């Protein structure tokens, strides 16, 4: 379990992380979602004890990271897959971690196999690796100590679709075994596919958090009836605000069940009733981040 309590970090006049609080629970995959520069990486560095927060406390399983003895055996961390010595072989990178943690060298072979790096690839130097291979190596490095907590910054970056599919399975299994997974991404679809819980961050602040279901639900309901006008009237009478949304349908902010009840009571035949189309988290993500981005542009524009 990873806990962030009122964590803030400033760099000069720039607030990278602003009073951030959230919990990544064990047994679940938590997606840390936000546009580039939103504060995800700074937050993750704070978790790993690499950056000291100005205020607030970050703990992993109740401990400050620096207080965990041999931390690699408890927490697997991948902050940047490219942060490896270009002149070392993939195998050597894992061997250094294994020696540090006191693991047998057989664990290196196991991990190479787990992440799908062949023996000949493992002998190559990291500078000859593609980004996808570096990510696999980084994931192997994070997993090598058999940790119960995983912190991965943009792990899907550079992976091909098959690689992303593989990683999804890996992280699901990890969480199913009771592990805690926190992964960041600036791409909604990646997180939407993998995560159980989501934390959305923009300009250093948490803008939304909850289970994926909760976040999806708040995005509204799409409903279509065989008689759109009658449905509009019925919803209006029931006090449910609805806006027209493509193809004779309506979008509302209420739960599908509320619409279903109102429609059933009035005898309106529904053709479709589901979470709002195209909204998913994408609309929400865009909404949450676009306002930030626009503000940013305006401020910069005004300053220029």
């Amino acid at each position, binding site marked *: 379990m990873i806990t962030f309590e009122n964590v803030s970090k400033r760099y000069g006049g720039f607030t990278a992380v602003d009073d951030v609080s959230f919990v990544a629970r064990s047994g679940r995959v938590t997606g840390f979602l936000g546009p580039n520069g939103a504060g995800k990486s700074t937050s993750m560095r704070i978790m790993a*004890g*690499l950056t000291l927060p100005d205020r607030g406390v970050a703990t992993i399983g109740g401990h400050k990271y620096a207080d965990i003895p041999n931390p690699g055996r408890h927490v697997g961390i991948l*902050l940047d897959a490219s942060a490896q010595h*270009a002149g070392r072989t993939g195998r050597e990178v894992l061997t250094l971690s294994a020696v*540090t943690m006191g693991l047998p060298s057989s664990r290196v072979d196991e991990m190479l196999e787990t992440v799908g790096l062949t023996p000949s690839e493992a002998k190559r130097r990291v500078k000859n690796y593609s980004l996808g291979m570096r990510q696999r190596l980084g994931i192997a490095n994070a997993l090598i100590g058999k940790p119960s907590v995983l912190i991965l910054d943009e792990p899907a970056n550079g992976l091909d679709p098959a690689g992303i599919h593989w990683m999804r399975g890996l992280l699901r299994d990890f969480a199913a075994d009771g592990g805690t997974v926190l992964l960041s991404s600036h791409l909604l679809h990646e997180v939407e596919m993998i995560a159980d819980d989501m934390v959305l961050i923009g300009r250093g602040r948490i803008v939304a958090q909850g289970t994926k279901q909760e976040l999806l639900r708040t995005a509204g309901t799409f409903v279509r009836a065989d008689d759109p006008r009658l449905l509009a009237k019925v919803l209006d009478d029931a006090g449910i605000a609805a806006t027209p949304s493509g193809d004779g349908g309506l979008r509302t902010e209420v739960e599908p069940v509320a619409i279903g009840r109102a429609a059933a009571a009035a005898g309106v035949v529904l053709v479709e009733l589901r979470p709002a189309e195209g909204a998913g988290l994408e609309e929400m993500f865009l909404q949450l981040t676009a306002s930030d981005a626009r503000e940013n542009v305006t401020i910069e524009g005004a300053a220029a």
Partner: protein
Amino acid sequence: MTTLTAPGTLPTGPGSAPDVLDVSDTRPVPMTRLIRVELRKMRDTRAGTWLLSLVGVVAVLVTAGFFILGDKDDRTFLNLLSMAGIPLGFALPVLGILLICSEWGQRTALVTFTLTPHRERVLGAKVVAALLFAVGGILVAAIPAAILASVGGAAQPWDGVTAAVLARVLLAFVLGVVWGLAFGAALLNSALAIVAYFLVPTLISIVGGIWSGAGDTLQWFDLNQSSSVLYDSAAVTGGEWARLATGVLVWVVVPAVIGTWRVLRSEVK
């Protein structure tokens, strides 16, 4: 109603998964292991392998060249050792610099410091590893020097070999390594640190040579000059020790303090 809920939409819940990490059975990483890792890091890259092999080859060539071309009576152990010491004196500080700076340049510090969040332990392991290399370097230089001296036919091959002299040679090597480590830590950039290491003290010597008025003052800060007495077979005088000490203070202690602070405090990105 609840039976209609699709499986998988329910949160799996923390269940029996512990929310507190039990670390009571985990022992901290012992220092010996960290030192072993640092020793390994010095030679597991192509740059490290090349540097080490090159030093070995040059040391052998220089010693052999001196043996073949030099006067028979000059083939003493100390002469041969100081010959082999020249390439080592260049290389060991560079190894020290690379050991620290490559963590920043190649950004491996990100991994190193997450595996060992107490950075002073990593720094300590690096210092010990570099010193072990220095001792190893001396042995590498001393063994062929001893063999060549004993077969060289010099009238007094072991002339001047005393414990004090050997200790001073050892000190000279250690000083070079620590000097490199200090510059590396203070600058955290391989190229910059290597250039600074070779250039700055040399500039002092040059300035001292041109500007004779400052020469007397500058010799207190010219560590290259003042540390060269360590290779002499003659005893080092009190004044020479004092000049060595001020040079060490300026070129080793001050950068080491700045460097330690930077390594421990600077943010790794």
